[in-house]
């Protein structure tokens, strides 16, 4: 196979790999393609409060189970002075706080961050008992209530075709306060909630049902009590109903806490116990959400990437990942334009320094150091020093110049110039040395041309590297480097003319 074909095949493979990984990260892991995308993250706080009796106290709170359309990004428990652990009990998780001696009002907190994702709320099947416990309505005074219940059931049954439509009808009837039977039932069970009564009537109709506890995610809600949904078994599967409206399905912003009818909170050794919830929404950068949600699953792609590094190193990598982009700019300008620079990739280092210092400060400092350095170098050249010693002397001079620039500008109140330290000193010293040779051999005009060319390339590289899209892509999709590599390989195969050559050879055409 010819080298050229190899280049194209390799470049195609690299591009495919890079693009594939990028698409996977975007589609599957939710990394945003564009910068500045935000996602809503809900912070839900459950506050368990009770008055302790003075003896040993224990509180057990049922924790939310995994829900398909809600991704839990993180949980925190606060329990000062309490022993804490999480136990698993009949496919439910419970947080258990315990203390040997507690008295007075106690507050325990459980907080979690969730993020809504598209998809169905619940997964089937669920191992809940479909056994129906008929209500005990034997006593004489309950006869009227019993009649009313069966009348409601009968009406609903007549107006429906299957269990689902029946439940819908039943719930609408129970919500309708003009219905006499309904009013009788509600009058009898004054202290019960709507969902309790609905469960009672459903069991009378021989339909397996239980409650679902949860919360509606709405911003800035405090001291919320959990809300209930109904779930019935239609013979094949479990179906959720919103009790007040009778409509099937889990409401969109409903966060399911507990499925099944067990208690939400058990407290031993305390009184007046209760759970209240508060909900706050935050807009969080989409990438952070993606990072948090994938770190839970320990996605290998993320786990073995620069994201697993400490934040400080990550920010260094943010710069390092821009270097290939700068190199690409140099390659393009060399191959397609034919710009002459002093030191092939020196402009990339300059561009990185410009990122830290801001463009105009950087340019000013560079030109200043170059001019002062050249001037000192001309003096040094008269002293007959060995080359390495002379360059080292220039390095020291450059450092002193940098220090001087920093101190003087700081005293003058120009804080910008403090960033001078980001300039690559050794490279600057070499540049000064090379420039002074060019000056001696080819004259000052050539120095201006080469320094100007380097600066032009550096400024273009800086401009590309500070583009927010480029910054976003290089850091969040480092696999795009493979695409870049493929592209550079293809550019390396270009055998056409450079822009500069169109001017250089123009005489030949005439």
């Amino acid at each position: 196979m010819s080298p050229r074909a190899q280049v194209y095949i390799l470049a195609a493979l690299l591009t495919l790999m890079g693009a594939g990984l990028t698409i996977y990260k975007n589609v599957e892991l939710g990394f945003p393609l564009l910068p500045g995308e935000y996602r809503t993250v809900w912070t839900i706080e459950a506050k368990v409060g009770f008055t302790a009796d003075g003896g040993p106290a224990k509180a057990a709170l049922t924790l939310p189970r995994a829900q398909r359309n809600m991704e839990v990004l993180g949980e925190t428990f606060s329990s000062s002075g309490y022993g804490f652990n999480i136990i698993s009990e009949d496919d439910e998780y419970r947080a258990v706080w315990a203390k040997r001696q507690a008295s007075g009002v106690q507050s325990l907190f459980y907080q979690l961050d969730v993020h809504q994702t598209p998809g169905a709320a619940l997964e089937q099947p669920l191992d809940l008992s479909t056994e129906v416990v008929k209500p005990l309505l034997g006593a004489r005074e309950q006869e009227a209530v019993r009649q009313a219940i069966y009348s409601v059931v009968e009406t609903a049954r007549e107006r429906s075709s299957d269990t689902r439509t029946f439940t819908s009808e039943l719930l609408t009837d129970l919500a309708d306060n003009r219905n006499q039977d309904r009013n009788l039932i509600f009058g009898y069970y004054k202290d019960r909630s709507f969902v309790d009564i609905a469960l009672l009537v459903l069991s009378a109709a021989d339909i397996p049902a239980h409650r679902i506890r949860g919360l509606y995610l709405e911003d800035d809600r405090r001291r919320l009590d959990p809300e209930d949904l109904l779930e019935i078994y239609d013979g094949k599967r479990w179906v959720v109903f919103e009790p007040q409206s009778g409509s099937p399905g889990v409401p969109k912003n409903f966060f399911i806490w507990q499925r099944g009818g067990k208690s939400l909170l058990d407290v031993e050794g305390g009184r007046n116990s209760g759970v209240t919830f508060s909900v706050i929404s935050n807009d969080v950068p989409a990438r952070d959400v993606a990072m948090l949600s994938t770190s839970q699953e320990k996605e290998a792609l993320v786990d073995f990437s620069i994201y697993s590094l400490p934040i400080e190193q990550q920010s260094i990598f943010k710069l390092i990942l821009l270097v290939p982009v700068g190199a690409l700019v140099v390659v393009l300008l060399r191959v397609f334009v034919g710009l002459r620079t002093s030191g092939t990739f020196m402009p990339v280092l300059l561009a990185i320094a410009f990122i830290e210092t801001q463009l105009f400060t950087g340019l000013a400092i560079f030109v200043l150091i170059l001019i002062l350095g050249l001037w000192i170098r001309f003096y040094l050249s008269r002293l007959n020093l060995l080359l390495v010693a002379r360059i080292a002397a220039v390095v020291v001079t450059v450092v002193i110049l940098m220090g001087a620039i920093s101190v003087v500008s700081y005293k003058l109140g120009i804080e910008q110039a403090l960033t001078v330290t980001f300039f690559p000193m050794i490279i600057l010293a070499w540049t000064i040395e090379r420039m002074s040779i060019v000056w001696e051999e080819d004259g000052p005009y050539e120095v201006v041309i080469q320094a100007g060319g380097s600066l032009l390339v550096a400024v273009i590289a800086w401009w590309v590297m500070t583009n927010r899209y480029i910054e976003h892509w290089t850091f969040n999709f480092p696999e795009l480097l493979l695409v870049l590599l493929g592209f550079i390989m293809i550019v390396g195969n270009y055998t056409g003319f450079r822009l500069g050559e169109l001017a250089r050879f123009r005489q030949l055409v005439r």
Partner: protein
Amino acid sequence: MRLQLPSFFRGGLVSPFALKKLGVLGMNARNVQYIARYNDRDKYPIVDDKLNTKRQAKRYRIPVPELIAAFETQPSRKRVMEVIEPLEKFVIKPARGSGGKGILVIVGRDGDEYLKPSGNKVTALDIQRHVSNIHSGLYSLGGKPDRVMIEALVDFDPTFDKYSFEGVPDIRVIVFRGYPVMAMLRCSTHDSDGKANLHQGAVGVGVDLATGKASHAVQRGMRVDIHPDTQMPFSDLEVPDWQELVRLAASCYEMTGLGYLGCDIVLDRKRGPLLLEANARPGLAIQIANGVGLRTRLEHIEQMDLEQLEKNVEERVAYSMDYFAAKPLA
């Protein structure tokens, strides 16, 4: 079909298609299709290090300027002075210099001082510093430590005196797979400060491979008919010993093993053509000097069959001188 971009590219741009049609070779095509393909990396040291070139040239009986001394390690002052003290004229060069950098030519003495061709004087101390700079790798590719060579100054053939100002006239021949394909004479001018680099203002004179006569001359991209300093018309210029010179260039192919090669040759009054240096990455300015593109000629040779490529030096020279003869100017 010309785009106008006068401010930056004084004189505008030409269409790349026009250049392609004329068979002009661009830098990218030269690098990818010729240098990378025909020049083996392992043969580079032969041409990149001028001391190696000299050694190899001896083996192949190719005449070169006489080597007076070479310093492999950093020489002491005493050693440098020992060598240059008895010399009237000499050249100090870095063995691995590129683009003519770091070459110091001394043409005479004035008391304790040394004279450069421009008439400027340098002291012994300056010369020692120059030697030390070369050693430290100031002029070598990548700044690697270098070796210093001191050569006898070529006793230039007087033919070119009228066409060169203060400088060293040399002839560049491009040899492709052993066939000389194009030649030019580089004449230094006052403008180029005695240097033979075309981009510094030297005149590039295209030389007809068949006859050794000038066919075309260019200074700073503009066509010229007379030397700007000496006012001599280039139409009278004819390189003596031309066939011998082309033969020398062609034989560099065997010596270096490089398929795409630039040979720099000077004419000595007594010894005839001498190989100054060979170059594995010869520039493209030769096309401007000749007013002809290289690509068509290179492609012609690429089409040759194996038998033709196996020919000996004399046959190749005869073929090139015949086939690449300049078309009479209209």
